[in-house]
């Protein structure tokens, strides 16, 4: 089970409280996690990554285990602690705009 923490505005949009728990087939990667997230919560499509190119939106970041994974290729395996559910995968709205 993968744990995903969404920023407040996306939790509101998806109508969830707290973490989202996802089942991801195979080796969890950012792409696989986002695919599962968008399948379960279609209203999030386009809010984290472009719907066609799948490019991450400029002011969204991906953190896990104290690392910034935003610039990793989307098929890079996530840390083992994320794969086991010990640590969450964080979708973060970048601090910007004052």
């Amino acid at each position, binding site marked *: 089970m993968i744990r995903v923490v969404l920023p407040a*505005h996306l939790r509101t*949009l998806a109508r969830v409280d707290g973490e989202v728990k996802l089942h991801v087939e195979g080796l969890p990667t950012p792409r696989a996690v986002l695919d599962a997230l968008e399948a379960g919560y279609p209203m999030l499509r386009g809010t984290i990554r472009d719907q066609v190119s799948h490019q991450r*939106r400029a002011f969204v970041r991906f953190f896990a285990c104290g690392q910034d994974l935003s610039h990793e290729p989307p098929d890079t395996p996530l840390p083992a602690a994320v794969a086991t559910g010990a640590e969450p995968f964080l979708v973060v709205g970048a601090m*910007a705009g004052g």
Partner: protein
Amino acid sequence: MSQVRVLVGTRKGAFVLTSDGRRDRWDVSGPHFGGWEIYHVKASPADPDRLYASQSSGWFGQVIQRSSDGGKTWEAVGNKFVYDGVTGTHQWYDGTPHPWEFARVWHLEPSPADPDTVYAGVEDAALFRSTDGGQTWQELPGLRTHPSGSSWQPGAGGMCLHTILLDPSHPGRIFIAISAAGVFRTDDAGLTWRPANRGLKSDGIPDPAAEVGHCVHRIAMHRSRPGVLFMQKHWDVMRSDDAGESWREVSGNLPTDFGFPIDVHAHEPETIYVVPIKSDSEHYPPDGKLRVYRSRTGGNEWQALTSGLPQRDCYVNVLRDAMAVDSLDPGGVYFGTTGGQVYASADGGDHWAPIVQHLPAVVSVEAQTLP
């Protein structure tokens, strides 16, 4: 007794203001979608409880919300706006070619006949349509691929398609306006388009009378007389009596002819409203006085409407989509400011009072008259 519902989009959420036909006491609901920019909220004329809202964010992009109960509850619908075919380029601010990039939906225009059909005017300028209640969107690419498209340049706020007028008496005829390309008209439901800017003069472009390139801020029509159009241009208030084939200036005695919104009284097709703004580099009213100007002659002769509006130290702006009228008798007029006030007049503009005074900056105002 009739009711009025005023739909307000702001920089930080949407608000729904409701009153009975007297329009002196208001209930305020909101913020809906708090923290998001709400560029526009508009109801379907075919089903007054069907609302559409454009919700956007610099972080999380575009969301379209739909309500089926007059704004009490909402559901996110489709937000996939993909240009049809080869995207092409328009001119960037520095004159270089720039690929069309979707940024946001500025304006939603529901069909008068079908609650599930709605048009969306977007930045970078293009027209989209949904026929399934906003679940999916298809571009009408004939506009963006007009031969002049590669020469279009953004206005200061972006290259937005901000006005959509559906002609009620000519099926297939649609007028749209783009900053800073100008007005375009289709007579075949969006397949082909042609510029409708003859008579406009804009000193800020190389050829002041060019076929395209004008910074049109807003156009308006009265449903009973769709061949007559009114325009607030960057500078100049204009009028067309031939469905956009030609325009003439009707700024008349306005203290300044710069401004953003323009609207037409619901029962008097020759009664129009503007809010003069000092200049394009000073986006506030002249002399610190917030004045709506009304013409009862379709332009040229204007009367300042000041009763109930601040007449000193007022430096707010009124944006292009932030004025609306209701269809009660006497007709109501509404507008919202960048200072967060929404003003209402229940007597055609003679007297004004604020409905709310401390909202986030108001981007759009629409009024619904309900049975």
